[in-house]
């Protein structure tokens, strides 16, 4: 690519106007909903932001956000490791696939809330219970992506690489990994998004701290403003992860797909 890194970053940030406009539209609808149904059902956006600010000043938000991030990322990393290793085995060996696929399907079928209850019984109301829930709900997604990636490795590219007597590290880095990433990355992105949701849910039920715990206490106090403020905190976290981490990585990985039929203009700005 001839464009400099700075130009690409500027292009990306400029593309944020679209996302900003869309979020402002949603806020306008929220305001209209507040006008129609009143504060108890839907507090005003301004009050919600003010409540979030007050809670932050009181030192409640940052520790909760960190706690939730630790639970979500811890569980997600464990899931990536377990799902990745087992998925690679299932992709490489037919027997392993037959053995593991039904288990993955079964795990995917069990509702996340059931895992929350079970892990609370097994691990008590601790962060471990939350991480375990994230691990068990996310790992099958990573597993499926990895297995698919390994299974669809292109035999003719491998043959070409062997004909050039390519050493194993180059084979892995230039031939296997880029192909795998095109399957693995969407699975990881979906897994990560799920991790946050499951974490908040598990925290809410376990009282193990974090944003979920804050939501639980808002529910007890019937404080809709506070509840919405916590929702805002989760949404902020999700948006930050999506646009500061996932989207830039996605663009970097997919440069070679630019203007490929059916992929849209992946190389241009805009969210």
């Amino acid at each position, binding site marked *: *690519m*001839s464009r400099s890194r700075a130009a690409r970053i500027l292009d990306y940030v400029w593309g944020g106007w679209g996302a900003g406009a869309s979020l402002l539209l949603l806020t306008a609808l929220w305001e209209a909903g507040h006008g129609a149904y009143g504060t108890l059902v839907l507090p005003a956006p301004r009050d919600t932001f003010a409540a979030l600010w007050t809670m932050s000043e009181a030192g409640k938000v940052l520790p909760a956000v960190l706690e939730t991030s630790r639970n979500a990322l811890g569980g997600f990393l464990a899931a990536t490791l377990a799902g990745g290793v087992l998925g690679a085995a299932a992709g490489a060996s037919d027997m392993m696939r037959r053995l593991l696929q039904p288990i993955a399907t079964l795990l995917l079928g069990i509702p996340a809330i059931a895992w929350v209850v079970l892990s609370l019984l097994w691990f008590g109301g601790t962060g471990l219970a939350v991480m375990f829930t994230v691990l068990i709900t996310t790992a099958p997604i990573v597993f499926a992506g990895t297995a698919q990636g390994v299974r669809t490795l292109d035999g*003719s*590219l491998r*043959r*070409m*690489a*062997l*004909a*050039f*007597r*390519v*050493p194993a590290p*180059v084979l892995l880095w*230039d*031939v296997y990994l*880029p*192909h795998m990433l095109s399957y693995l990355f969407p699975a990881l992105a979906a897994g990560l998004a799920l991790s946050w949701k499951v974490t908040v849910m598990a925290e809410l039920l376990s009282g193990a701290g974090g944003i979920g715990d804050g939501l639980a206490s808002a529910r007890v106090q019937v404080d809709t403003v506070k509840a919405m403020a916590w929702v805002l905190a989760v949404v902020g976290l999700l948006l930050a992860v999506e646009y500061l981490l996932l989207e830039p990585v996605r663009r970097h990985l997919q440069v*070679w*797909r*630019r*203007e*490929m039929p059916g992929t849209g203009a992946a190389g241009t700005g805009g969210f």
Partner: protein
Amino acid sequence: MPGLEIRGLSHSFGPQTVVEDLSFSLPQGEVGCLLGPSGCGKTTVLSMVGGLLLPAAGTIDHSFRHPVFVFQDPCLLPWRDARDNIAFGLKAMGVGRRQRLERADRLMEIVGLASDDGAKFPHELSGGMRQRVALARALAVEPDLLLLDEPFSALDVGLRRQMQSLVRRLIAERNLTALLVTHDLAEAVRLADRILVLSPSPGRVAARHHIPEPFVQRDDGFVHCMVNRLLADPATAQALAVELS
């Protein structure tokens, strides 16, 4: 006489024998052609010569140090641009990035690619350009033996002719030896000094032909006459009957 010497070569995949008792020699600097219908084991022979397959029986002797393949499918890495694809073989040899990209730039010029094609990804290139990239990738490692596995068969007639001339010119300029696999008799006549006609499965030698005329003399008229002359040989016509019908 240094070159390629094959004696009593046989190979089977499971119970099925694909190549049986094949012997031929190719002097250094010449273009040999394995000609035969689909499934006669041509690619298997090429794979054995290139060291991708071990022969079940027979010997392959050659003094070449860098055999290199050009496949029917260009087999480019879709996630690397043309320049990096050309430099791929050099990366495998451990050549530094700057040096290999410089060599890739020179080769792009040699195979007739514009310098701004270097930043394009394979899906942004036409079929002919992709095959040029594959050819440049093969030449980048400075081979002494080119193994060409039907490299032009996916191209349309005009492009095929261009690529044939380019390959033949590069072979002459760099004093390469080449072994070409094809099922197209006209292509064999246009490019090869020696033609080995293989019978349908299992592949055995059906006929051998030598074409001494220099490449520059092989115009359409010559190719037409020579094709007819070779088909007048009953063994050649019979081996290729499947293709002709």
